[in-house]
């Protein structure tokens, strides 16, 4: 069967490689991690460490650092309709992510390239607390399609990269 790349999904036309703009700010958001979000992250990862559930060396409970995965992805999805797959994840945990603290997150596109006939984009994000302290930094690489770029785009996908913004 001939390979094809999905052309659209319920959120509209899929973003094409040529439309990804280097340096583009994907947006900014204020994000407050709640106790419920931390509970959900622990459940997803089946990791119920006491620091994430009760108390920690920083006093109250803190969030698993990987809770930082979703907000930068949400910012990508607010700008571009990309499903694809996550291929690289750089993460730097500078300070603990505490509940009920407002984080200001900014993300931008920093690179794009083609390798083995597949199209990749790279974006970075940084989160700061209200005092201006950097809490985390991340750099992600995402392949736009599993299928090679030589495949024709047609048809509608069942899934979409644009999801409800929740943990």
């Amino acid at each position, binding site marked *: 069967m001939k390979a094809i790349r999905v052309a659209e999904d319920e959120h509209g036309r899929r973003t094409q490689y040529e439309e990804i703009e280097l340096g583009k700010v994907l947006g900014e958001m204020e994000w407050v991690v709640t106790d419920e979000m931390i509970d959900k992250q622990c459940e*997803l990862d089946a990791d119920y460490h006491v620091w994430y559930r009760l108390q920690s060396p920083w006093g109250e409970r803190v969030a698993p650092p990987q809770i930082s995965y979703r907000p930068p992805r949400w910012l990508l999805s607010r700008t571009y309709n990309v499903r694809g797959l*996550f291929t690289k994840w750089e*993460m730097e945990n*500078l300070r603990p992510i505490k509940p009920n603290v407002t984080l200001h997150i900014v993300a931008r596109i920093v690179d794009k390239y083609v390798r083995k006939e597949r199209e990749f984009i790279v974006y970075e994000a940084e989160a700061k607390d209200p005092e201006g302290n950097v809490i985390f930094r991340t750099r992600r690489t995402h392949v736009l399609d599993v299928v090679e770029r030589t495949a024709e785009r047609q048809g509608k996908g069942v899934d979409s990269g644009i999801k409800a913004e929740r943990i």
Partner: protein
Amino acid sequence: MPILTTDSKVGHELPQVACQYKLEHFKRGDETTIHTNVEAAKREGLAAPVATGPQVAALIFRQLRDSFGIGWIEGGRCDLTFRRPVSVTDFCVAKGVVSGRAESSDGIRLTCDVWIENQAGDKVILGTASGLVSGATSSG
């Protein structure tokens, strides 16, 4: 107490963390996704539903939290590559070994090679990670 300390040597093996995945692990409400639905996966060119990368990588993060303790939450770094899709029914185990040591303004940082193997022994995620360590107060 963290497993790694300033006394830990290059070659020290990190604790292994494993999980037998099943499709239910990757369901998010009533969403139909490439992680839970055969048709959704096939439309995107995948043979079958694939695990959510961050959920599988979480095995490494748990390993690093246990190894570095505070030095992972505050000062931890990682650089992971998702080499191939993980099936939603795979058995995965996170492994790692201390590969380097450096002094920085923050203290002593240990670097580790980390990876996740599936039941066939394929390295599906691999990369490096590092964290800050403090004085020897535990085995290691």
